[in-house]
């Protein structure tokens, strides 16, 4: 009988998580939790990911677990709560989004975006070509699919009375938003993508 005690497993995941979270530099932000624009931006990018890939919503949770961020993004409900801190949502959760939670989301987004690099580039190229020719976006099926899914999700989840949502009452405007988010996702696929995304969340807030 050996008096040999092994370290309990929950701690190990915490230790594994922290280096990854520390890879994102901490921002000298005066606020206690994430600013408004950051919450909104994260939710919209996740929305774009869901619109890109059918398995998007499940993938987010799986990736979180794979990356060892399961302690921060605990379960589906928790993830939904975090995303619902977006002030444009119909049912806004009045809870703060902690910096750690935001970092975890950024890491997940970067990982998934890198996986979807090819698709993102294809869609953007198609969009540019159609625009140069002056043709409507619906010509390209993949692009059209993405845009339609994005619009559906957006209208379903966002509160139409909000000023930030009213400007997207027009479908064309919403399409433009979808394309813009696609471009931002493209930047997330780079080698410094997660860093760039994380820092960009605090532009104008510090």
């Amino acid at each position: 009988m050996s008096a040999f005690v092994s370290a309990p497993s929950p701690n190990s995941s915490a230790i594994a998580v922290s280096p990854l979270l520390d890879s994102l530099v901490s921002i000298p932000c005066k606020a206690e939790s994430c600013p408004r624009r950051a919450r909104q931006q994260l939710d919209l990018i996740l929305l774009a990911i869901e619109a890109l890939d059918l398995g998007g919503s499940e993938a987010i949770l799986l990736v979180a677990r794979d990356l060892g961020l399961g302690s921060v993004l605990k379960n589906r409900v928790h993830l939904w709560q975090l995303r619902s801190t977006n002030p444009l949502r119909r049912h806004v959760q009045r809870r703060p989004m902690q910096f750690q939670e935001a970092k975890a989301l950024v890491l997940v987004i970067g990982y998934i975006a890198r996986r979807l690099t090819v698709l993102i580039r294809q869609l953007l190229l198609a969009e540019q070509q159609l625009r140069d020719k002056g043709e409507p976006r619906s010509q390209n099926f993949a692009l059209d699919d993405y845009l339609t899914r994005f619009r559906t999700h957006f209208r379903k989840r966002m509160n139409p009375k909000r000023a930030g949502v009213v400007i997207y009452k027009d479908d064309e405007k919403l399409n433009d938003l979808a394309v813009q988010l696609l471009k931002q996702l493209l930047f997330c696929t780079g080698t410094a993508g997660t860093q760039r995304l994380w820092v960009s969340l605090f532009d104008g807030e510090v």
Partner: protein
Amino acid sequence: MQLERNYRLPNCTLALEGMGDPGKFDSLGGGLGSQAGAPLAILVQASCEILDQTPVLRGGLTFLTHLSTAVSRYAQECLSGVQRRHSLSGGLVQLQGLENGRHRLLVFPEEGEGSGTGHTPIEMELTTVQLFDLVEAVDQFLADPQTLPDLGLLLNPIPKREVPSQESMAQRAVGPALGVSGLAIAAAALFTLPVPTDIRRPGTATQPTQTAASPGPAKLPTGLETPNSTITDPDQLETIQAKLQERLTQAWASQPGSVEGPGFSEDLIYRVTTGQDAQIVGYRALNAAATDFDKEVPLSELVYLPPDGSNPTGEPVAEFRVRFTPEREVKVEPWSAAIATAAGEIAADAGASETPADSAGFSPAPSSLATPSPTASASPAASLASPSPDAAEPNTSSGASSGASSSTVDLNTLTERVYDALDQRWTADPTFTEALTYRVEVDSSGKIQRLAPVDSDAEQYAQELGLEGIASSGGAQPSDLPSASASSTSASATTVFQAIFKPNGVLEVSPWDGYVDPQ
């Protein structure tokens, strides 16, 4: 040793040529030429080629650093949507967003570049994917420890200061505009308020005394005193007199302690002012006994106190002389017919103000004294044996006798002269402890005709004050005088003044009847 680094991406290729640091010798490499492990420390040339775009961008280290910084900043702006207020100034490389979703890249030639490129900047339009590839190439180069290891990616969020305000200029200007307009409106509203011309201290407004050399400030102490008109109609006076008599008799009879005899042995004389309804608005004791036995008579209880503490304004008043005899009799007679008796006591604020409207002295409100009518100048001046200059005029409204007749300017001059004359004589230090009042009569040239002390104290100290022989006749005793003041001698030539000598060395001279109200 020539070193080369290439970062290839689908749309962009970044090629760096340079050398390793000659100072460092890579031991791993060994041998000649095998410096593969050495980092590229010195850059010779950097070239950036973007697919389908000409020309190829070339430059040295400066160009490379400028390119890296500009591209990195622009990428952050694309990601967040927040633009900086001031872009990099003096930068060789600039990026701008365009309407069609593309991006314009401007590259300015370096200083001292060959004249081949000229001074016009190179301009390129990049699609987003091309831009991203450029960003990625730069990121890879910066992250490479083997290439210019001193350069690294530095990302900082844009501080709040550098972000232009989200509100439009119009919205931001609303606040200050509201403030300024509010101020303008308030200023206009307050501008319509009248500027006060006559500023007085409360409490002293009723004493038109004259000190030093300043000719009297205002004509009438309008401060707290309100001019009341005197009732002159004989019928009315009679009615009021009867009422007053009845009231006083009743009140005195019902007073407790009236069963025993009254405590005084001589008549108590008061000057009482009443309103139209015989309501007593004020009274003043005219002899010493009256002051002492004030409690025995019901005057204090019957006095009507207006709620705001001042005299009822504008109401016509009637004045009577009331006598309370030891036999418990009350005798009332109208003041204009009454004699000026020597009460032997004059209030310190003996500045009689003469107007057609006067109010009584001894009222709760600090009003000035009033001379009722010019006739019996209410002088408790004992020495008033001789006719008072402003006497014998039952018509109060004339008020234009004697002192009143002199214009204000003359009055001021006379006052000054009297003051000077008295001041010259008063050289000794005051030994008395209370103010001494004298009645001074002067002619129109300012020469003192007679001077009379008002009370016994004044008489006592007259010598000390150097007043002996200042005028023709000395003072008489403060005693009751026969009602002889009705006659008036050269009324128009003589002016009466009141001189008060105070223990603190101050001399005050003022007209006996006060200043004329120019109403």
